[in-house]
Structures are given as structure tokens and as C-alpha cells.
């Protein structure tokens, strides 16, 4: 088997041959190779994560008109290494009345909940952890672990700011999970499957779902930012109100795990946006050379991550009541309307030629977006008239 056309299987077979050659049992060596595979995947994600620290600092510097890290290595590229050393040698503090076991478990679970996601993400045509037939639901399930870790951190720190952060996280989790799940259903309706591998393959063979459901991609992005707890939805951290919330008491590498988890989570959601709406690993020659597909995937994920950073460093934090209203009165109804429109238009057009299908779906999204904006315009005009009667009279 050729390494360049099927890297995972060729490595797997050569290792299996080597292990059984050393006298190991075939089943045992299979298990060992699987564990090694998991370690390699996690290492890949964590190495990207170290790089992300530099990317994030450099990009935020550009957004704020600064230079960012530029002393160590070319363009400050080696800056994360002293950062990590600093985190490791920092004093490890624990509050006096903290619940020690839960307090120490929370950062580990926080990072683990992100690493779980990488099990189902297809990195290339034949490079993926596992092809689950319920990958989209699995994604939601790992989010439950992330929330749990934040609550554990918030509660066990024995600090009221930390607990407030955890309360806010639960409020946003319950709310934004709904538009997130509904926007995930749109690729599921079009392909008829919940498997990320099949969804990507469908996009490779037909068209990127961004073309047929731009509104769905936007809804997913907004819900993902809320799930990440990044600005404008960073109420669970809110450094100006509750002094960075749930991880207020953490120092050293425990804080580092939260930080790394948050960074990798944002990158992973960029990757999921790519998988669901931008064709995943699809690109020129990606089917023939899977390693090239990995490169395309990472590039698309970086683009998604960049959009998330762009929004984070541009808009201010919104108030909690505004956040809940935004979700329940705007995002959720819009997501359900989009789901109904997609479920009606898709079966109507799916037997037509492809360009008619894409155009029809795109126009239906556009129409829905336009109607939404018109409704919002009408409501906001009414609200303004109620608040500023003088201005409204002058306008008429």
C-alpha cells in the first residue's frame, strides 16, 4: 500500500507487521497501535494549539494596531515556548476552602472535552479518528463535558465570582444549544446522514453547503461563538465585571490548560465550520494526496478561527438579558424558520439540475434573511418611536 495515497493504513500495516514480528499477539498489537494513534492525534492537536497562542497574540495585535510578539525567533514565532515554561514554573495555588479533587479535575476535563471532538473530525479523505454515524450529536455531547468542567471549576474554587461565571455559562449553554443543533440539522437534511465523513464527501462530490445555506453557516458561527464563550458572549469570563469568572483562582499550568482548551476549542469550531459548510478537506488534488487534504483542512479551520478572532476583538460584550433576548427572540425563531424553509425547498428542488438547486436554495436563504431584516427594521422603528416620541413626530 502506498504511503502517499493511504497514509494511515500503510503505517498501520507496517506497524502491525513489526509488532507481530516481535512476538506480540495480533489483537494486543492492534490495541497498542490504536492507543498510539490516539496519542498521535492528540499530539497533532496540541502542537497546533501551541502555534495558536502565537497566532492569537499576533492577530489581536494587528487588530489593535500593535506589533505583538516580535522578539523571540522570526516574527516572534518561538514566543509560545517561553510562555509555556513560564506557566509550568509558576506557583501552583489552591484556595484554602476549595474542593481539591474537583478543583484539580476541572482544567483536565476542560481540555479533554475539546480533544474529544477531534475523534470524529475528518482531516482528509482517509485520515480520521472514527466515522461515527452520529458525529453531529457526538459534537453536542462533548459540549456538555465542557460546560460541566466550567461549572466544576466555578463551584470548587469557593469564590463567588467563579460561581457567577458558572451560572452565566449554564444560562448561555441552555439557550444557544438550540440554534446550534438546528443549524447542524441543515447539512443533515441535505445529505441524509449525521456522519461528518459522509457530509464532507457529499460536498466534495457536489457543492459546498455554504452555497446552499449561507444563513445556516452564519447561525452555526454565532452559536459556536456563544458556545465558546468568546466576545461578544464572554459573559462567563467578563473580566471587567467578575474578574475572569470561572478560572479566577487558577494559576500556572492549570490556568494554562483552560487557556489551551479555549484556544483549541475556537480552532476546532473553525474546523467544524469548514467540515459542515466549506467542504472540509476538499481542494485541488486532495483526494489523491490525503496529506494535502490535511493542509487544506487546517487552512480552512484557521480561516474560521480568524473570523472568530475578528469578531472577538471587534465587538464589545453584550449584557446578559440582551444575550438571552437575542437568542430566544431572534436566533432560535430564525433557526427554526430556516429549518422549515430548507426542509421544504430541498425535496422540491433536489431532482432538478444542480445549478437550479443551488440557486433555489441560495435564493430561499436570501429571502428569509431579507424578511428577517425587514421585520427587525419595523420593530426597531416602533421601539425607537416609543422611546423618542419627539424624534418620531419630526420624522413624520
Amino acid at each position, binding site marked *: 500500500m502506498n504511503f502517499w495515497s493511504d497514509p494511515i493504513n500503510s503505517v498501520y500495516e507496517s506497524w502491525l507487521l513489526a509488532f507481530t514480528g516481535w512476538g506480540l499477539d495480533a489483537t494486543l498489537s492492534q*490495541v497498542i497501535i490504536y492507543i498510539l494513534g490516539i496519542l498521535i492525534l492528540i499530539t497533532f492537536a496540541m502542537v497546533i494549539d501551541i502555534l495558536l497562542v502565537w497566532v492569537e497574540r499576533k492577530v489581536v495585535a494587528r487588530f489593535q494596531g500593535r506589533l505583538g510578539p516580535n522578539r523571540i525567533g522570526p516574527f516572534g514565532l518561538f514566543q509560545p515556548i517561553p510562555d509555556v515554561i513560564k506557566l509550568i514554573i509558576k506557583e501552583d495555588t489552591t484556595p484554602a476552602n476549595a474542593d481539591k479533587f474537583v478543583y484539580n479535575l476541572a482544567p483536565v476535563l476542560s481540555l479533554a472535552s475539546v480533544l474529544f471532538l477531534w475523534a470524529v473530525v475528518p482531516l482528509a479523505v482517509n485520515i480520521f479518528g472514527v466515522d461515527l454515524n*452520529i458525529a453531529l450529536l457526538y459534537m453536542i*455531547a462533548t459540549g456538555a463535558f465542557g460546560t460541566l468542567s466550567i461549572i466544576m471549576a466555578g463551584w470548587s474554587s469557593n469564590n463567588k465570582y467563579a*460561581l457567577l461565571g458558572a451560572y452565566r455559562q449554564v444560562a448561555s449553554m441552555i439557550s444557544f444549544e438550540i440554534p446550534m443543533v438546528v443549524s447542524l440539522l441543515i447539512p443533515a437534511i441535505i445529505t441524509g446522514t449525521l456522519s461528518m465523513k459522509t457530509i464532507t464527501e457529499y460536498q466534495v462530490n457536489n457543492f459546498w453547503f455554504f452555497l446552499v445555506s449561507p444563513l445556516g453557516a452564519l447561525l452555526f458561527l454565532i452559536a459556536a461563538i456563544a458556545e465558546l464563550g468568546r466576545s461578544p458572549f464572554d459573559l462567563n469570563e467578563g473580566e471587567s465585571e467578575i474578574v475572569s469568572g470561572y478560572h479566577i483562582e487558577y494559576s500556572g499550568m492549570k490556568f494554562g490548560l483552560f487557556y489551551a482548551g479555549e484556544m483549541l476549542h475556537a480552532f476546532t469550531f473553525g474546523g467544524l465550520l469548514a467540515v459542515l459548510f466549506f467542504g472540509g478537506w476538499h481542494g485541488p488534488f486532495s483526494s489523491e494526496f490525503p496529506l494535502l487534504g490535511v493542509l487544506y483542512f487546517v487552512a480552512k479551520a484557521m480561516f474560521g478561527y480568524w473570523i472568530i478572532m475578528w469578531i472577538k476583538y471587534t465587538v464589545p460584550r453584550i449584557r446578559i438579558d440582551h444575550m438571552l433576548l437575542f437568542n430566544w427572540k431572534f436566533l432560535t425563531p430564525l433557526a427554526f424558520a430556516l429549518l422549515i424553509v430548507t426542509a421544504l425547498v430541498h425535496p422540491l428542488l433536489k431532482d432538478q439540475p444542480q445549478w437550479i438547486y443551488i440557486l433555489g436554495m441560495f435564493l430561499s436563504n436570501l429571502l428569509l434573511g431579507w424578511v428577517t431584516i425587514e421585520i427587525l427594521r419595523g420593530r426597531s422603528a416602533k421601539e425607537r418611536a416609543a422611546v423618542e416620541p419627539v424624534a418620531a413626530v419630526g420624522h413624520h
Partner: protein
Amino acid sequence: MEPTQIIFLVTAIMMLSSAVMVVSSRHLVHAALWLIVTLFGAAVLFALLEATFIAVIQVVVYIGAIAIMFIFAVMLTRRELRDSADPWNKGWPVALALTAVVAVTLGSFLLKWDGLLKTSQPMAEGYDSVASLGTALISPDAFVLPFEVASVLLLAALLGSVYVAMNKK
């Protein structure tokens, strides 16, 4: 011994010991955390049986929901999260006797049952359990009526909660 059997045994021991911890832990939040471990073990067992959909739903519903229960436990009880009462009451010999009878009965049935030592058959290649479940839920000769009745019930509960919470002016 196969790897799946080892996983099963580890999961079973983990589930049983954490279930004991749920009822014996004096701290409310610790009990909730042990409950999460137990229910996660159930999800692992479902995954071992290749019932992936049920396994993931187990995690979404129980771990996601228990996280919320956790928060409510903290919010509603504030300081007194620790149960200081004596866990033994006068009825413990009766409870022990009843439990022993049930355990012996179940154990004797299990020993007679020939399925106890069987390993599960692998699912047929290409069998999509999620698609079959979805089709069964909406096909008229399967479960469409119970499914719709449950949906209506949930909708009624939703409307009821909105009515209760509504600010009547």
C-alpha cells in the same frame, strides 16, 4: 479475554462503585458528580453494544442535564450542601433483608440463564441503526402515534411553563 470484555468489566466496576458513592456521599455536589460517572458508564455500555445513538443521547441528556441540576443544587441550598443527619434509621434490617431476597432471586435467575456468558454479536456490515430508528419513529406501522403523543405532551408542558412564568399584568 477480548479487549471489549476488559472494557466492559472496568466500566461495570466503575459504575457499581460510583453508584454506591452516589448514595453514600454526604456532600450533595459530590453525589451529583458520582451520578455523572455512573451515567457515563451506562453510555459506555451502550457504545459497547454499538448503540451509538443511545450512548450519545445518554451523554447529552444526562450529563448536560445533571450539570444544570448541579447548579440548582448549589443555588437552592447555598451553605448547607453537607448532609449531617445520621444515614441509618430504624428500618435498616428490613431494607437489608428485602435487598438480600431480591439479590438472591435475581442471582439465581441469572445463573440459570444461558445468555449470561455469551458475547454480543457484531452488527451486520453497513447496518445504520440511526436511520432505522428514525424510520421507525415516523412510519405509521411502527411508533408514529406514541412519538406524536409524546411531542404533544412536551409541547403542552412547554406552553404550561410559559403560562406559569408569564408576568400577568
